[in-house]
């Protein structure tokens, strides 16, 4: 190619996101009624109707081939559309523009655009759409619930309120395999400290009997969940990608209050509410907490979500939404939980440092890997940097992440245990292993390594990192 030619890379981005129900406007001229939410909102009405109509048609059309599994995505040169029907007749559609390369031409000619149609994965963005719904459901309950409570108007209102903000937090360019897993990172902990946490949770639940469920996290990693797995999965997502990052930034900036000297007596502690009142002493303080919906054996229940944090330890207390939370309750909780949680946080920190020192450097990750267990949703990644509010950084090239995603798709196709070894360009080897319900992806950068050496390296990794689980070589 000629020198002087400039290239500009564009990552995938959100083109539009809409929710509709075809049964709401079945007659001609009423099509607009089908649309419950449309982003971006400034699109002309007829175009909205046209786009919804197209999706409806595609789904209808593909249904004739497989009534139970209609189309999930539509690949086009410029973009990709994802369809998801979370509740009967309610459709969520997300349109993502394919990544592209813009080549500037000399002589003032318009730039040439090259779309990279094959660079994005259905599994990743399909999972993103499902996550959008789960997140909505966590804070609002099902679509049907809103309909029952206040008709279409209510639903539209809720969707507008939720997705307007939520879509801004979607970072489609950094979505990858971890979004497919939607896993939970567990904090490694010795038995005794774990039992102390159990004891703490049980005592708090006993003295504040309003509390129905408790979850306990340290360093943004889960230690205990009283909620069921699926609810915890989405709550964890919310906490670690939205709530905690929002609060950790002021902490990092050094604006976090030190010990609170205003606390009476000598019960100094670092505890504070991340949801609800920021300052208990404020006479104007409002004792309102976000409400969440979790599943029960016969439906769902609505709960107040109290997130209380002391140093790196965070406890989520969930209380039936039918109870009104008062200043007295919050003060009692603060007085009871604050000192204990502060103590526990320093215990955990101490124990963690001891364990790290004992296990020594050989346990330190020398490999870049992602591990996921479908059974308990445990995930572990040495590829991803600490998540911040804005972006999730990976330390490897997107091309490699794409290979991981491809291997994952292969694994999803069959039930049996498998192992896939890929030689990527640029000297990298990518290994994917699946044993029972567990998946492991390793990225190796060994110059001139052969297959046998790569295999040995992965074996070594398994022996050091996963020696306490049944993970077949």
């Amino acid at each position, binding site marked *: 190619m000629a020198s002087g030619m400039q290239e500009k890379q564009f990552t995938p981005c959100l083109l539009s996101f809409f929710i509709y129900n075809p049964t709401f406007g079945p007659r001609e001229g009423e099509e607009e009624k089908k649309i419950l939410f449309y982003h971006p909102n400034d699109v002309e009405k007829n175009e909205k109707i046209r786009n919804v109509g197209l999706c409806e048609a595609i789904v209808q059309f593909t249904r004739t081939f497989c009534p139970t599994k209609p189309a999930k995505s539509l690949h086009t040169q410029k973009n990709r559309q994802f369809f998801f029907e979370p509740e009967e007749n309610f459709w969520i559609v997300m349109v993502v523009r394919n990544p592209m390369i813009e080549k500037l031409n000399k002589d003032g000619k318009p730039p040439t655009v090259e779309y990279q149609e094959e660079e994005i994965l259905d599994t990743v963005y399909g999972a993103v759409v499902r996550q959008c719904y789960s997140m909505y459901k966590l804070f609002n309950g099902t679509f049907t619930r809103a309909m029952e409570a206040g008709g279409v108007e209510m639903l539209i209102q809720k969707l507008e309120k939720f997705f307007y903000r939520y879509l801004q937090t979607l970072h489609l360019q950094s979505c990858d395999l971890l979004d497919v897993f939607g896993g939970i990172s567990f904090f490694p902990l010795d038995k*005794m400290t774990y*039992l102390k946490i159990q*004891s703490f949770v*049980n005592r708090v639940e*006993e003295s504040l009997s309003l509390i129905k469920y408790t979850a306990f996290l340290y360093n943004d990693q889960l230690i*205990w969940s009283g909620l069921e797995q699926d609810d915890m999965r989405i709550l964890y997502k919310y906490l670690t990608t939205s709530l905690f990052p929002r609060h950790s930034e002021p902490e990092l900036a050094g604006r976090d209050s030190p010990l609170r000297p205003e606390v009476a007596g000598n019960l100094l502690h670092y505890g504070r509410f991340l949801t609800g009142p920021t300052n208990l002493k404020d006479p104007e303080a409002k004792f309102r907490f976000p409400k969440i919906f979790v599943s029960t054996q016969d439906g769902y229940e609505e709960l107040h979500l109290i997130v209380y944090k002391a140093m790196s330890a965070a406890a989520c207390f969930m209380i039936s939404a039918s109870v009104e939370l008062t200043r007295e309750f919050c003060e009692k909780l603060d007085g009871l939980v604050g000192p204990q949680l502060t103590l526990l946080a320093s215990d955990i920190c101490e124990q963690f440092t001891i364990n790290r020192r004992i296990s020594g450097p050989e346990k330190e990750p020398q490999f870049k890997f992602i591990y996921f267990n479908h059974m308990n949703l445990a995930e572990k990644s040495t590829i991803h940097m600490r998540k911040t509010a804005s972006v999730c950084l990976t330390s490897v090239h997107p091309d490699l992440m794409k290979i991981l995603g491809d291997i994952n798709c292969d694994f999803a196709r069959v039930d049996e245990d498998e192992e896939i070894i890929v030689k990527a360009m640029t000297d990298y080897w990518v290994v994917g292993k699946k044993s029972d319900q567990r998946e492991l992806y390793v990225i190796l950068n060994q110059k001139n390594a052969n297959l046998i050496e790569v295999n040995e390296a992965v074996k070594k990794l398994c022996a050091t990192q996963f020696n306490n689980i049944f993970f077949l070589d």
Partner: protein
Amino acid sequence: MSDEFYLELSENPVQFENASSVNNVFFDEANKQVFAVRSGGATGVVVKGPDDKSSVAFRMDDKGEVKCIKFSIGNKILAVQRTAKSVDFINFIPDCPHTEFTQECKTKNANVLGFCWTNWNEIVFVTDQGIEFYQVYPDKRSLKLLKSQSINVNWYQYCPETAVILLSTTVQGNVLQPFVFKNGTMSKMSKFEIELPVVPKPAKLNLSERDIAMATIYGQLYVMYLKHHSRTANSPSAEVVLYHLPREGACKKSHVLKLNTTGKFALNIVDNLVVVHHQSSRTSLIFDIKLKEPEGAVNTHQPVLPARSIHPYRIPLAGPAVVPTQPPVSCQLYSSSWSVFQPEIIISASEGKDTSSWYLQVKLPPTVNLLQDKGKLMDFLLRRRDCKMVILSVCSQMLEGGGENGNLPVVATVFDKLNQVYKEYLEAEQSNPAAMESGPSRGSAAQKRPIITQAVIDQSDMYTHVLSSFTEKKGVSHKFIIAVLMEYIRSLNQFQITVQHYLYELVIKTLVQHNLFYMLHQYLQYHVLSDSKPLACLLLSLESTYPPAHQLSLDMLKRLSTANDEIVEVLLSKQQVLEALRFIRSVGNHDNVSARKFLDAAQQTGDQMLFYTVFRSFQQRNQRMRGSPAFNPGEHCEEHVQHFVQLFGDQSLLKPSTV
């Protein structure tokens, strides 16, 4: 109210005729014997011991009024003091001359205040001028002076348990000089001074014998001083001051028991508790000197429990003259006719009735409701005799309340108290296993062994008497049940005690019953339920209701590293033949496994390629091991070979490689 009496008198008192002009009554603390001497012994002497069998009756000549009468240890020799100068002896050993013999005290002009037997044939005379230590030769009817010590004596006390005599000396009587006797030797211990509340002027005897008692508490000898309140000194109420008298070294004031009242008191020691009887209020107090962490040289104690009377007592009217229908007469407690002896004897002479002698006993069940602080209650109970069932019932009762406010921290405290003692026991057992098996035994060897004085509530006690029934109780929230079980496991772990499998089983059972599989999963994930084969098998059995249990179980078996056979069985049972083969290879056990088992499983899957692969793998193994791909007859693989030929033909069999 009636179940609040925590002190009681023993059921069968020793009864004897009241003292009168013709009947003298003596009590010997050493042998706990009551002597009723009628007419100076001429019309009979009746000796009643602590139990009915040890009664002795005999006659002796009336040689004047008896001042003191005591048997030597084992009822071998009787000593009788009739005059101020001498003591008479009568042999009670068969084959020894029975005629009396006499020993006068050696010190001139001294008066014998009394005497104490320190052995079956060793006796100490205490005179107002000192002590004389004799050996008695019953066959020769004579005594030999072993040692003597001259010292002015006001009065004396004797502690038979430790063979220590305490002498009151000096004009005020408050300097006490103890002597200890052992196998014919007499040693002087360091003397000490009792601080008197008021020093009288001019000096006169000011420390009464009645206000001093000796007793062993938790294996240590103490001198107890009943310090009355005095208006002049700064002591608004009476207190008991305990001086610790060690074998060696100086005696130290170590405990002060606050009585918070004034009046007449008497002391007993029961089960290492100091019992203080208060006559005017007719109540008693108990003190446990170990209930408080030591905080300095002198520790001040408050009563463990609120003051209560001894349990009302009715004397069953004895004797054949009594009509059976006549109700027993209630006994006046704390009467002025009561005499209290160490460590736990109370003698009451009441008019018109026989004199009775009881042991004082502590009843533990009533203490449970009187001592609200459960942690303190455990400390208290654990140091008592026969406390095990009481403690277990306290635990059951405590859990019955369910998840009331603030109950769990109490439960945790109680568990920690129990397990602390349990841990100490386990450690002692480990360092000296023999001591535990034989229990407290006689002989010199037993003395070197650690003596387990405290009760131990181990896991099986807790499981059998408390936890298993508690988890089945209806109406208790499962949240509380699980919290309690986890608390117990936490406490055991905290004391590094290995948790028994049945506790884990109880946890799992409870979780499964309430469909709390995700909780179970998390516990296992953090290894709260320790790995074991039985636990892994239990998990396997849960697979049908909770599929992830399969993975949890396999992981556990893997970690055990002794369960490779089980892992193969599990995999084969799930028709994961290839996985089983890969696993057995990875642990290097491919050469030893039974080919038949794998071939059976492969054949059962109906997957021909799988069968081919497995068959081939074993043929290759045979080749490697024995130089031939054929199976040994002992492996019983004939039908599989046949099956293979049927499917793939003769020519597919691996041929023996030719050299």
